[in-house]
């Protein structure tokens, strides 16, 4: 416990330095860049693992420049590392390593700036997870965003990536400015930027209108990053057009960081002001999570473009994770974290798997690839395993996460929530199973059985234009491009079975939500007093929901193979039409969402 805090800034600086080295030495051959990036990513992952182990005993606090708080007043900037922060930073590290290993064979041509951007992106994400300062959260939010915008458009000569990057950049920037306004308002009220200090200043005061507006702007910005409906339009565009090794970072950890950020501010700065209104705020946030999960699940089922299908599935699963945050209890948050771990690894495997299909066949459309996947049987198994994780099938990691969320929902009188979430799991997993069976086994109809020809033609055109319009099919696949997704999907399945993992996530969640212990550790340097956590056991109902969603997925996949739709044509077309690809429409939706969500939050918190 003596000097481990010095590792925290290193975890941020190493990828940043690697980015500078790669950008500065861009004349060196590609293999050198890959080696530098990989070494930096491995070092950072190791540091995060060490931090994770040490954070078990309490927050690790590092004051930059040695500016420690005096008499409980913090002027300096702190890194405040707890298990959740270190854990999500480590997940970032693991996915970056997987992405870099995969990209050694995936790209035919790639230059230095790409690796510099990946390292910058990594540095921003790790710093966002480890910081204890609200303004730093904004800075790193923007750092990872800007790197992500550029990475989306890395294939700058194609049309899809240009449009996707514009939509992504504008939506996230507007949300970021809202975040900054919220921070400025809070600073005006409290004179503090450190999360613990803000929390202390707001303690013992019920939230007034100004605090409520600040909370709204900050949480809405993080929910935009987390792709909550109706702030979610950017995600489908950006994830579908980014190259596969970038998409896994987007879906696997970047959007989860949005929920992490919201959880962080709600449990530190705003912990006391929201205390009297927990019941109403829970209702609002659960509504957001549920709408996100349901709308995106139906959108997902309609897709035939594999990456877009996975992107919508990510939005839907983010809805489930947001529900875990929304219930505002230790158990639900633990569930969200375990779920995010399983989902992040599985989505990583699936996005890389689609990348491999693109590499081999030069296509990514479900109907175009029908029956052609027989050359890559292992990849088919990866897809089926990934679908099991999405369905939260019994004993995979997401099953444990979801059972905690369900448990918390039942104790908070949201009896309907588990059934709705099971439906969303079944729809997203069903869509993936349908595509897998069609591609790898050649099952099902070979063209959409639809009289809605205009919309199908449209989707055919668009699907041929997203990532890979210019990709030449290679006709063969290096073993590495199958091995990396396979390793990730195995990790996604067995992580939850590691003994002690789920109980320690529960303890970490209780620790994360302990507002007083956080403030004490940061401002007074007190070792935390951890209350013992009652560990929960998987209940019989969780098995029923898990089996139901798995069976539902198989059923829906069967329906999909026969060309059936799950929604009436009018609603289905309306859902598709909302994703117009026009940035003006997206910002109009964002403003509309702010009006509704804002009204509800203000009613709940200040009303």
């Amino acid at each position, binding site marked *: 416990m003596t000097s481990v805090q010095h590792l925290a800034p290193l975890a941020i600086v190493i990828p940043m330095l690697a980015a500078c080295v790669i950008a500065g030495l861009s004349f060196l051959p590609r293999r050198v860049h890959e080696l530098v990036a990989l070494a930096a990513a491995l070092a950072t992952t190791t540091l995060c693992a060490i931090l994770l182990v040490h954070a078990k005993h309490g927050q690790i606090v590092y004051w930059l420049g040695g500016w420690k708080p005096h008499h409980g007043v913090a002027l300096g900037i702190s890194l405040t590392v707890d298990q959740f922060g270190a854990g999500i930073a480590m997940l970032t590290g693991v996915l970056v390593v997987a992405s870099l290993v995969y990209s050694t064979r995936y790209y035919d041509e790639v230059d230095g700036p790409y690796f510099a951007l990946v390292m910058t992106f990594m540095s921003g994400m790790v710093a966002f997870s480890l910081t204890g300062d609200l*303004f730093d959260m904004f*800075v790193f939010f*923007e750092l990872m965003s*800007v790197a992500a*915008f*550029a990475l989306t*458009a890395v294939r*700058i*000569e*194609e*049309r*899809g990536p*240009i*449009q*996707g*990057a*514009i*939509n992504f*950049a*504008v939506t996230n*920037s*507007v949300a*970021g*400015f809202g975040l*900054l*306004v919220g*921070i*400025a*308002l809070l*600073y*005006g009220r409290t004179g503090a*930027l450190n999360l613990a200090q803000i929390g202390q200043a707001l303690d013992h005061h019920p939230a007034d209108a100004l605090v409520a507006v600040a909370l709204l702007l900050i949480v809405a910005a993080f929910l935009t990053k987390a792709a909550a409906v109706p702030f979610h339009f950017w995600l*489908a*565009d950006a994830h*579908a*057009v980014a190259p596969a090794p970038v998409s896994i970072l987007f879906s696997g950890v970047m959007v989860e960081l949005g929920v992490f950020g919201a959880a962080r501010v709600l449990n530190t700065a705003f912990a006391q002001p929201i205390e009297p209104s927990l019941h109403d705020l829970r209702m609002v946030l659960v509504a957001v999570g549920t709408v996100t999960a349901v709308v995106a699940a139906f959108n997902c089922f*309609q*897709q035939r473009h594999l990456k877009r299908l996975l992107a919508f599935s990510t939005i839907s699963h983010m809805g489930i994770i947001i529900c875990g945050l929304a219930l505002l209890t230790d158990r639900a948050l633990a569930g969200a974290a375990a779920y995010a771990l399983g989902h992040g690894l599985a989505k990583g495997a699936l996005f890389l798997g689609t990348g491999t299909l693109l590499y081999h066949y030069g296509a990514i459309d479900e109907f175009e690839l029908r029956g052609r996947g027989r050359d890559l049987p292992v990849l088919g198994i990866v897809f089926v395993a990934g679908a099991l994780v999405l369905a939260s099938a019994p004993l995979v990691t997401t099953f444990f996460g979801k059972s905690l969320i369900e448990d918390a929902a039942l104790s908070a009188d949201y009896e309907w929530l588990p059934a709705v979430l099971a439906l969303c799991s079944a729809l997203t997993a069903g869509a993936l199973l349908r595509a897998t069976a069609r591609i790898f086994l050649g099952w099902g109809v070979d063209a959409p059985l639809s009289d809605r020809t205009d*919309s199908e033609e*449209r*989707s055919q055109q*668009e699907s041929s*234009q*997203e990532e890979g319009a210019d990709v030449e099919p290679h006709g063969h696949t290096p073993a590495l491009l199958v091995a990396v997704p396979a390793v990730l999907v195995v990790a996604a399945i067995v992580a939850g079975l590691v003994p002690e993992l789920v109980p320690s996530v529960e303890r970490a969640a209780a620790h994360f939500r302990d507002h007083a212990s956080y403030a004490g550790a940061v401002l007074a340097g007190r070792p935390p007093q951890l209350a013992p956590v009652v560990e929960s056991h998987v209940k019989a109902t969780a098995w029923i929901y898990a089996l139901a969603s798995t069976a539902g997925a198989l059923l829906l996949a069967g329906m999909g193979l026969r060309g059936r739709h799950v929604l009436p044509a009018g609603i289905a077309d309306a859902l*598709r*039409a909302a*994703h*117009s*690809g*026009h*940035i*003006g*429409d997206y*910002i*109009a939706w964002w*403003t509309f969402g702010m009006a509704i969500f804002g009204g509800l939050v203000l009613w709940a918190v200040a009303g």
Partner: protein
Amino acid sequence: MSFLPYAVAAWLFVVGLYGIVTSRHLVHLAVCLTVVQSSTYLILLSTGYVRHGSAPIYADIPPVSTAVDPVVQALTLTDIVVESTITALLLALAVQAMKRFGSVDPSFLRQLRG
């Protein structure tokens, strides 16, 4: 202390959003985004403003004299850096959009739908 800066900031945020929603030109859209961002400068600076305060540089004035809050000025500077990065990126994307779509009207960017 007046509410005027806050009212102006709210106006800038909303009018910038209106500009983005109705924009027919990507360069205009990038400028509208900077209009939204100017509201954050205004909020930050007015938060730290002290009437009759001097600049927070204590080299040639007694350390007890009133000065405006230097923290928000540092935040504003950071904000400007963020702003210029995003604008540069968006303008570069606008150039590419002109090359690949033959138009900088967002209505003609029709690659991604549904």
